[in-house]
């Protein structure tokens, strides 16, 4: 099956700066993909190119099998887009705005009312339907933007920072909404909030300085990078012997002990990449006749990975720079 989005070697140069540098990725139908990166990484630029607002400097971009530059109007019919900061006509009423958007998106006259009712229900806009958009709270405005994106029943939803500026309750609601929408639409959303992407997306693309650094499911990213995947062990026993014993366990890469306030020894065990030696640790402790009080694997969050990937990228760049300097 042909992917919903297919991006090959996408490059975007503005006067003097390269916003995107040879980016390639694909999004399959039905996926919820999160674009993750610090501010200015190239997330919005990619989205603007996908929606045909600005063209690419080089590379191929296809949405639903259509070239976004050649078939721009047709591509736009497949996309529901919510730009960054969700710009809306603040002087219009919600119903009026959605009706206007439905018309310019070419929703047939006969279906317009049904579509309108449907998105109003989906996004919980019933109570504000006759209010002026400029007077709505940020949360409701965000929902108006989402409702607009959904109007023409697009195959693909592109949401740029959909939860920015919302309060925690609103963020939760919008996330839940996105999750629900993911059952029927392909979604590409961007965020610089890690937990958000971790919670809503089935795949994460980490992007920085116009380059893709990693692309995988949150779980796999955790597995591959396993940053900080330490195992905490608390044992009643002599510290030095415990450390030596644990170091000898298979798959253990390193051990660090800290004496506790009581007779228990706290040990942080670093396992080999991709392994889980907890069972072996238990056996080793039990065989020595010590008491085991705690044996926990620290949960790695996407945040750790993100930080790690960014650091690796920075180090790699530093090295490149240094090797260049060396050549001179």
């Amino acid at each position: 099956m042909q992917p919903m989005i297919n991006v090959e070697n996408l490059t975007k140069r503005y006067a003097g700066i390269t916003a995107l540098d040879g980016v390639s990725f694909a999004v399959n139908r039905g996926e919820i993909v999160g674009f993750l990166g610090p501010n200015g990484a190239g997330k919005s630029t990619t989205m603007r190119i996908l929606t045909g607002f600005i063209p690419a400097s080089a590379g191929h971009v296809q949405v639903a099998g259509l070239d976004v530059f050649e078939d721009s109007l047709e591509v736009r019919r497949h996309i529901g887009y919510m730009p960054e900061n969700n710009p809306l006509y603040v002087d219009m009423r919600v119903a009026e705005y959605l009706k206007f958007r439905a018309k310019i998106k070419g929703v047939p006259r006969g279906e317009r009312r049904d579509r309108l009712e449907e998105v109003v229900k989906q996004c919980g806009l019933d109570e504000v339907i006759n209010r002026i958009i400029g007077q709505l709270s940020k949360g409701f405005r965000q929902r108006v933007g989402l409702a607009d994106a959904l109007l023409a029943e697009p195959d693909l939803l592109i949401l740029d920072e959909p939860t920015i500026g919302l309060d925690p309750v609103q963020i939760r609601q919008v996330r839940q909404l996105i999750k629900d929408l993911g059952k029927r639409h392909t979604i590409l959303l961007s965020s610089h909030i890690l937990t958000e992407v971790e919670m809503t997306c089935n795949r994460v693309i980490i992007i920085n300085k116009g380059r893709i650094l990693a692309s995988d499911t949150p779980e796999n990213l955790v597995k591959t990078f396993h940053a900080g995947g330490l195992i905490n062990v608390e044992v009643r026993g002599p510290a030095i012997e415990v450390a030596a014993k644990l170091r000898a366990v298979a798959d253990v890469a390193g051990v660090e002990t800290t004496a506790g306030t009581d007779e228990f020894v706290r040990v942080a065990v670093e396992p080999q990449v991709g392994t889980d030696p907890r069972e072996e640790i238990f056996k080793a402790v039990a065989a020595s006749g010590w008491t085991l009080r705690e044996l926990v694997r620290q949960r790695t969050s996407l945040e750790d990975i993100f930080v790690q990937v960014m650091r690796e990228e920075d180090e790699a760049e530093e090295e490149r720079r240094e090797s260049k300097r060396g050549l001179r």
Partner: protein
Amino acid sequence: MRNMLALLRRELNAYFASVLGYIVIMFFLVVMGVTFAVVVGWLATGPKQVTAMIILFKMFWLPSLFIVPAITMRLLAEEKRAGTLEMLMTAPVTDFQVVFAKYLGAVMLYALMWGLTVFYVVILRHFAGASSALDLGPIASGYVGVLVIGQFLIALGLLASSLTKNQVAAALMSFASVFLLLIVTNWLSSLFQGGQLGRIVRAISAFEHMENFSRGILDVRPVVYYLSATAWALFTTTRIVESRKWR
């Protein structure tokens, strides 16, 4: 076509959703109403070579100077500033459709304003009596003139609005171009009375054109001139809106 209508409706609604549309119309009616009253009062003092409507049509520069910037400054500058242009341009509509709808919306508001002055004709007709029946021909061609010149000024104002995110800057630019086109060319045509230069200046002078229109001379040349100038202005505006794509 359907989305063209939707865009146009949105433009017209925008004038009346804010107070702008009402203020502009009120301003116009006050200016024209006072002018009309003064003109009629002056004409009542004795027989004159001109009619009330000729004077009124020749006063078109006064509202144009302020109203064209007022109704066009917002059009594209505000969309750019608020970012709503992105919403518009990622919907399945072309850049030209958006530009043309904005132009058409402003022209319709302008036509509506001038349409209200038909009341003056009704008043004149009522009080003129049967003996000096009002000649409707020059009045009709006067309206054609007002519309043909006005729509070009609006296209210029829209062009100014596409150049900036700042409404005030857009208003000043369109004020300057209307001033240049009406007042300065009028002054120049009085400066160069004869000769080749004088002919050129008079050919582009809106006052000269309006003089003819208001006297019932429906010349094709100025009509073609203004319509093609409008086509140029709208084309340029579309290219400027598109220019986000070349940067």
